[in-house]
């Protein structure tokens, strides 16, 4: 899929009408995610009850890829157990860095598989991954995360 198709099929829709966009009252977990090179900047808020993500919302300024990724992520993990959401974080990251072939290997990504094409846009991988990093940070009670430094999905040796 070329990038135009990627934009046309999912990104534009979620960019115009992001799901679960906004704040959450009395969130149990929150985190801020930054992609300093692009300027993507999002906040993620969660309700976690008995190990289940019962509520989730995001807000911020970002490019369309990041926003669509965040929007689809919130839809995908709402109602999921924390460990299953963490499993998706790992699978999504593997997919966009090219380590997981969603067509050939077992996975739980479903619709999120449309982001597989991002692996051919190396400069945009961080945009797609940022919401997922932020989810992981929120679930592990880190207040902020970034796509640089230790968290860089493309850094040598990671």
């Amino acid at each position, binding site marked *: 899929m*070329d*990038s*135009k198709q990627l*934009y*046309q099929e999912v990104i*534009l829709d979620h*960019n115009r009408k992001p799901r679960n966009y906004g704040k959450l009252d009395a969130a149990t977990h929150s985190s801020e995610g930054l992609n300093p*090179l*692009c*300027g*993507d*900047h999002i906040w993620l808020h969660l309700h976690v009850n008995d190990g289940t993500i019962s509520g989730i919302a995001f807000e911020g*300024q*970002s*490019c*369309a*890829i990041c926003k669509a990724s965040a929007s689809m992520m919130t839809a995908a993990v709402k109602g999921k157990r924390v460990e299953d959401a963490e499993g998706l974080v790992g699978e999504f990251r593997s997919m966009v860095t090219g380590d997981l072939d969603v067509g050939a290997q077992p996975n739980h990504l479903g619709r999120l598989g449309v982001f597989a094409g991002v692996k051919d*846009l190396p*400069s*945009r991988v961080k*945009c797609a991954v940022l919401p997922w990093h932020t989810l992981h940070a929120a679930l592990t009670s880190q207040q902020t995360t970034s796509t640089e430094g230790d968290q860089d999905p493309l850094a040598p040796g990671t």
Partner: protein
Amino acid sequence: MTVQALRQPPAGDATKPLDVERIRADFPILTNVRPHGKPLVFLDNAASSQMPQQVIDRLVRYQTHEHANIHRGVHYLSETATRAYEQARISVQRFLNAREDREIIFTTGTTEAINLVMHGYGRRFIGAGDEIIITYMEHHSNIVPWQMLCEEKGAVLKVAPIDDSGELIVEEYEKLFNARTKFAAVTHVSNALGTITPIKHLIDVAHSHGVPILVDGAQATPHLPVDVQALDCDFYCFSGHKVCGPTGSGALYGKAALLEKMQPFKGGGDMILSVTFEKTTYNTIPHKFEAGTPPIAPMIGLGAALDYLSAIGMDRIAAHEEALLAYATERMLEVGGVRIIGTARHKAAVLSFYVGEVHPHDVGTLLDEDGVAVRTGHHCAQPVMQRFRVPATARASFALYNTHAEVDALVAAVVKVRDMFA
């Protein structure tokens, strides 16, 4: 026309406009590469420009007929290489119209040139409470070294503001000077906005306060004739890879009297006259600042690139690019929803823009699909982005080989992006 016939630089006739098609034929990458099956429309020249066959040939000749270490051997090849390297220094001297070739220090680029001055001049002559003046539109490479110096010495960085069009507010710049001011470092052309600063005036103001001034010429040298004697600046820096030369090349011009007062930047071979464990005597300029084996081939390539541009004529290149920028600005403004960041009266070859509310990275990815290469991001000028309250911009930047038809291709691609997000 045969390729061989093109290997000579096109003859410069200052009265004639550029024969852009003939120039394009000198740049093999423009036709060799078809991104996503589309003709390459390369508009990322402010980041790095392409290399003509004449420069590539010069590198090949050096590597196949002339290579040895320089300044070190008595043998034939070493002398040949040394001559070629020193000839390149003369090419830089001519290009900048420096008084003497020993006022040209080879560096790996603008960043290294600025750092050299920071270490060589700043660390020796700037102390606690002293002030250094820069502007709001500097590239990070003309901010961070001075911040490091201020941190080390307890000196203070003063920043001259810009207005909403991206022009330096000259009165504010003038007001920053006082008895504590010990150095100024300003850009000649802004890489993020395209603004051409009133550089001669900025230099005169600094000198009227007895303050030496460094000019970052990274974005000026590809587009404008530069005469360091007429400017009377103390230091002038630029990068080879932005003037159709190789990466790893560049130069610092410095007035001889200042360079002589400065301490070396790096220690090692070639920068010394004699070494004992008790005392080392430094070499004379320029060698004092060129420790170790330099990137010889890139510097020779740089000389060839400057000779190439000079043969065409920087006046003619400037005129061509000015026409291209005016055309691009007009066409882009016709596209509803496009906003131009940087609308100074005097601009060089840079068009930073926003398409509606579309994030510049999305613009860049989608333009690329149409073969149009632009830079997106903060352009290593985050203070400029903060000033204009944008996280990033898309930036088209032109070189001598760009055409009006390429501007049309850019505009057509931008219209598609706008419509896609509409």
